[in-house]
């Protein structure tokens, strides 16, 4: 049966229309990824609204294509401009730019692109093996467990996306949860925070919220007068030399892939963390750690393999638990829901072919990315020279269209604008937007499951401390809160 699903997905992918869509999606993802200020999350958020009317499989292919493309595209500006196109490529700039300065920009792009493709391909193996396992495990979850896992997801996302100040991440998550409370509640159809407005009663749509949160601030920030850095030229590369460099460092590739997948699985932690951790792991294990930061090939390979392995890793909890592993994955979850899929424990029962389709499309996207990235690299310098003051107003035009297409209402355009302002205020005060979005996505799940659980227990919260999986989640949550607030350290000090 698995083979049948895989073959079905391969044939769907190989249809001329879908191949063309994949090429366009990966290409636009690469360009959006390499332009500093246009993040992967923004690229997917924008495309989600635009794919609303596409056939489901075509929409999936385009969304995964743009995800893989945008994460990989960031390395080109990191190497040539020393400005990462996306945060995921920040670690790549450390060694990529010095290598490009030595006149080996083409070689640096070749090894970065090949490592990116390998990272995604290896992560697909984990998607295929871990997702069914986690889905089976999640079938043991009831209302209380689902409530706790959504809270756990928001808490850990808040803690990890606001390093050094988890408070801001948690506030952001709570704000998202409060936004999710707007509208008729799913249990009693009671109107909350609606003020008699029919549009608010039908809940705030996710897509305008995420387009506003992630797209709007980048557009507005581009209005500032800022000089762009000088970019280096792409030199010619030799395939044999590049491939030998990557495959010669296979240990770093495997290690970084595993790190990337594991980081990706943790809710809310992005591809940037995957890249940094992989880079750090390779540096700390290297016999020549001083070469890192001076144009080390292993540094580039580790960072790019690690951040792209997160793509598959982040999809594993999306598919099995409906809890996104990163900000772009959170947007993808919304897109899956919009196209009629219900990721979570019942996914393997309701849509058994879905996981295999996603895996095949990821493989297709990473191969397409490898080919296109090397072709596009010839024109990277020109693309990086696009005037932001021309590009960003056009991007806002697409934000408006993307928000409007969800329900064909002007109200959603206004919602996008309002959440854009909120996103701008949050990012300017260093509040991460990812927990906010996660709160909006997981809010309905947390609310409905908590209230269902409370109804079944006659309003008692005791099941939270009576069910084994709940106890496990509670212990982890308590330790995380104590650890992040510094109380754990204080307790340890007192004991010693």
């Amino acid at each position: 049966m698995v083979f049948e699903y895989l073959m079905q997905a391969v044939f769907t992918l190989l249809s001329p229309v879908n191949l063309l869509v994949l090429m366009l999606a990966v290409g636009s993802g690469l360009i959006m990824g390499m332009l500093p200020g246009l993040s992967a999350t923004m690229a997917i958020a924008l495309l989600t609204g635009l794919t609303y009317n596409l056939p489901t499989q075509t929409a999936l292919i385009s969304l995964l294509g743009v995800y893989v493309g945008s994460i990989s595209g960031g390395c080109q500006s990191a190497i040539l401009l020393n400005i990462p196109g996306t945060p995921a490529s920040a670690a790549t700039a450390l060694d990529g730019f010095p290598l490009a300065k030595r006149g080996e920009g083409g070689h640096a792009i070749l090894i970065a692109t090949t490592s990116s493709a390998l990272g995604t391909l290896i992560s697909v193996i984990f998607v295929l093996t871990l997702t069914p396992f986690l889905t089976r495990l999640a079938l043991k979850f009831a209302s209380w467990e689902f409530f706790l896992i959504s809270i756990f997801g928001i808490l850990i996302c808040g803690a990890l996306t606001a390093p050094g100040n988890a408070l801001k991440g948690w506030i952001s998550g709570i704000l998202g949860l409060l936004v999710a409370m707007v509208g008729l509640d799913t249990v009693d159809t009671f109107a909350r925070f609606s003020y008699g407005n029919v549009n608010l009663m039908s809940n705030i749509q996710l897509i305008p919220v995420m387009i506003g949160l992630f797209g709007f601030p980048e557009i507005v920030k581009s209005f500032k007068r800022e000089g762009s850095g000088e970019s280096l030229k792409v030199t010619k590369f030799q395939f044999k030399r590049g491939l030998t460099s990557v495959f010669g460092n296979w240990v770093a590739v495997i290690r970084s892939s595993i790190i990337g997948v594991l980081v990706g699985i943790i809710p809310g932690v992005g591809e940037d963390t995957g890249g940094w951790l992989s880079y750090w792991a390779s540096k700390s294990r290297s016999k020549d750690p001083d070469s890192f930061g001076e144009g080390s090939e292993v540094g580039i390979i580790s960072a790019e393999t690690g951040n792209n392995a997160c793509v598959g890793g982040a999809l594993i909890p999306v598919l099995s638990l409906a809890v996104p592993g990163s900000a772009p994955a959170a947007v993808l979850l919304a897109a899956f829901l919009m196209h009629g899929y219900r990721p979570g424990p019942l996914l393997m029962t309701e849509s058994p072919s879905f996981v295999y389709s996603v895996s095949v499309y990821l493989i297709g996207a990473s191969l397409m990315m490898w080919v296109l990235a090397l072709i596009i690299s010839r024109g990277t310098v020109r693309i990086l020279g696009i005037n932001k003051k021309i590009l960003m107003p056009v991007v806002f035009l697409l934000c408006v269209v993307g928000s409007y297409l969800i329900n064909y209402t002007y109200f959603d355009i206004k919602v996008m604008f309002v959440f854009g302002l909120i996103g701008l205020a949050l990012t300017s005060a260093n509040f991460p937007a990812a927990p906010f979005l996660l709160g909006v996505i997981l809010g309905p799940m947390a609310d409905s499951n908590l209230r269902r659980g409370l109804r079944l227990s006659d309003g008692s919260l005791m099941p939270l401390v009576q069910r084994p999986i709940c106890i496990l989640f509670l212990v982890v949550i308590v330790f995380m809160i104590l650890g992040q607030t510094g109380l754990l350290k204080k307790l340890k000090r007192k004991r010693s």
Partner: protein
Amino acid sequence: MEMKQKDFNISLVLVGLGLYSTIEGIRMYRKAARPPYNIEQFSISPGFLPTILGALLLILSITLFVKSIKGCGFRSQVSALLSWSKQAIHDTDIRLMVIGMLIMGIYAYFLIGLLPYWLSSVLFLTALMAFLRATKLWKIILISTLSVALVIVLFQVVFNVSLP
């Protein structure tokens, strides 16, 4: 602006929001206790989670507020906010961002519903790019027209969806 100053400003807003959400949650509970809902138990009321979330937001915002005034005091933060506001008026970057957002707001809230999509979008793009001095005016008009035409062809013709 310093991060502590930013934390101070935003924590004031968040405290207000937390307070409002908590009160609104309690009001929901009271309303749900009456017919036709008749849900008298707080823990199963639709106002339960909003109240808890509001209270949590309030606690965390107060914590952020306290952290932001630690070492410098409330009064100095207020005076720093006032002096920053005076400087911000003359800051070119802030002015560019605010007026840019204003143009975007006018387009999103008024122009789209008032004029045909193509006209409102061309006007918006031309106005914003001209304000930002992106390039020469004739180029701006050409780019705006071509961009809107491309969006219309892509969505209305290729995807067969209706635009605003």
